[in-house]
């Protein structure tokens, strides 16, 4: 890769004694859909605001095609943005809202008309052109906001939790729209959310934020299947953590002893561990099976409760040492007699289990 399209360099932002963003460095290629994912207060919105120009970073730089954006005021950055709250101009119609960025740029009227029509077609709201924002639903308002943000063909589109105020069904519908619009326009999108499902569904790449730093950057699959830290493993998807004693590591696979004394070999080690070091073993709930397979390891548990969740069942279990275990096998893989509370063995593939420092 030669010169990155958008480049965030050692970004740091402090508010008085509180540092919201510690040291964020990230290169974003043109056309990528990158999501900043993280719990609230992890610095993802602050980073986005620095790109938008709403907050000056304490140090570091934001470069677009090699040129620093920091000295450029918001209104000259030519960046599109959709906000968490509804920010349509309430006194202007839908069409006037979409036309606004073109009007302030003094584009010819014919071009404005055509672009507004194109944009409303893109978000499929042609018939709402003459309505006022107050007469639109939340989902429609955010689609108009999207049309307004894209009307001037910005190289970058920022989206700050744009769907968090919508209900689940509408959210999924608009996620589909956003994916389609990203495909059709090829615009580079930086998307902020605290919803991991949304991040996994939408993004090419996810930057997972924690306490003002990026914990891991990668595709959704990377983060889910190859978490770099226990925080990533815990944040993306559901995870079980079991206390384990590290015995030995060879070629990145470790042998460990669980609390009940059983020895498991072939788990993936994240980091280097000494002999006898206390560690934690992470196993995804859906990595457990109810039948033994050739390479599987076993775990003795007491099944406390079983619930039916459609395609999966959710089993609440406990180890002899009292550690809770969440098990979610597919419903088809289980027989009815498996469901009664009892003590039994469950099985997991050690290569889907990760060892982290305690």
């Amino acid at each position, binding site marked *: 890769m030669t010169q990155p399209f958008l480049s965030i360099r050692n970004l740091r932002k402090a508010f008085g004694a509180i540092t919201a963003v510690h040291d964020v460095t990230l290169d974003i290629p043109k056309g990528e859909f990158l999501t900043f994912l993280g719990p609230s207060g992890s610095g993802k919105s602050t980073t986005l605001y620095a790109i*938008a*120009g*709403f907050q000056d970073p304490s140090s570091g730089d934001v470069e677009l095609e090699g040129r620093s954006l920091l000295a450029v*005021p*918001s*209104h*000259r*950055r*030519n*960046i*599109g*943005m959709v*906000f968490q*709250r509804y*920010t*349509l*101009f*309430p*006194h202007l119609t839908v069409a006037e809202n979409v036309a*606004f*960025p073109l*009007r*302030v*740029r003094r584009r010819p009227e014919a071009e404005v008309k055509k672009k507004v029509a194109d944009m409303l077609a893109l978000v499929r709201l042609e018939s709402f052109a003459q309505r*006022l*924002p*107050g*007469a639109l639903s939340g989902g429609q308002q955010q689609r108009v*906001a999207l049309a*307004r*943000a894209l009307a*001037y063909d910005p190289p970058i589109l920022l989206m700050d939790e744009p769907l968090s105020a919508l209900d689940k069904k509408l959210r999924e519908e608009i996620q589909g729209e956003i994916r389609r619009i990203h495909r059709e326009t090829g615009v580079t999108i930086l998307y902020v959310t605290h919803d991991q499902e949304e991040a996994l569904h939408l993004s090419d790449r996810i930057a997972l934020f924690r306490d003002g730093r990026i914990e891991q950057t990668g595709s959704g699959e990377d983060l889910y299947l190859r978490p770099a830290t226990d925080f990533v493993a815990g944040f993306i998807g559901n995870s079980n953590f079991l206390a384990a004693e590290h015995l030995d590591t060879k070629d990145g696979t470790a042998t460990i002893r669980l609390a009940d004394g059983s020895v498991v070999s072939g788990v993936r080690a994240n980091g280097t561990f000494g002999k006898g070091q206390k560690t934690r073993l992470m196993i995804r709930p859906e990595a457990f099976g109810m039948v033994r397979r050739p390479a599987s390891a076993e775990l003795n548990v007491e099944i406390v409760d079983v619930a039916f969740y459609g395609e999966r069942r959710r089993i609440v279990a406990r180890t002899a040492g009292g550690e809770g275990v969440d098990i979610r096998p597919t419903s088809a893989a289980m027989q009815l007699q498996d469901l009664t509370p009892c003590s039994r063995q469950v099985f997991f593939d050690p290569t889907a289990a990760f060892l982290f420092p305690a």
Partner: protein
Amino acid sequence: MPAGLNGLLPALVLIVLFFVVPVLALLLRSVTEPEPGLQNYAALLGDGTYARVFFNTFLVASVVTIVTVLVAFPVAWMLAIMPSALASIVFGVIILSMWTNLLTRTYAWMVLLQRTGVINRTLMAAGIIDQPLPLINNLTGVTIGMVYIMLPFMILPLVGTLRAIDPMTLRAAALCGASPFQAFRRILLPLSLPGVAAGGLMVFVMSLGYFVTPALLGGTSNMMLAEMIAQMIQSLLNWGLGSAAAFILLVVTMALYALQLRLVGARRISGGA
């Protein structure tokens, strides 16, 4: 009478007794004194001297309203975006000035504005002017004194309107490419118009009938309607003419109020939805 209106009866009696009856008495006097007929109105509307007073009244009220809006807007905006603890202190100062006696405040302006007043002396001492500026007994003096008194009536409704505007809307406008001036002109100003209209009308109507400040800070050449009415009734004892002038003022005020209701009511201000 429908049963539901029984509770309203005392209020209704009060309004009729203290508002409707006096206004009707006023109207009656204006067409019966000194003899039945419309001669009082004909005199007021036909005479050049009276017409000048009417014109001057509207001129002063208009100038005061415009200046008040111009001064109040930045103050209201500052109050709207200020941290609320600080804003309530500034509000306290503004309200306190409203509670201070009107005459005291007007005399204070006389001290400041007169030929040998603080302002002129300071400017002359600083060498900025050679001759004292004519700041009193003219339109300038009336405007300064009245704007000062009217400011809270403009600021308070305006702050309410400005606070209802989501600051994110202005950030969105900036990212859309609007310069600070464009964002003000195309977004903030239209959205704050209901507050400007409400405050502006209040100030205009209050200014139309204002007496103390124009009487003390104004000159004889720009007399306002309230002064004229006082003169007609107190000095000339011409109750008929005074009542007619007062009634004209009332009709004009009500017409303005109706106009504002139409304008603001018809505007598209669905911002709260």
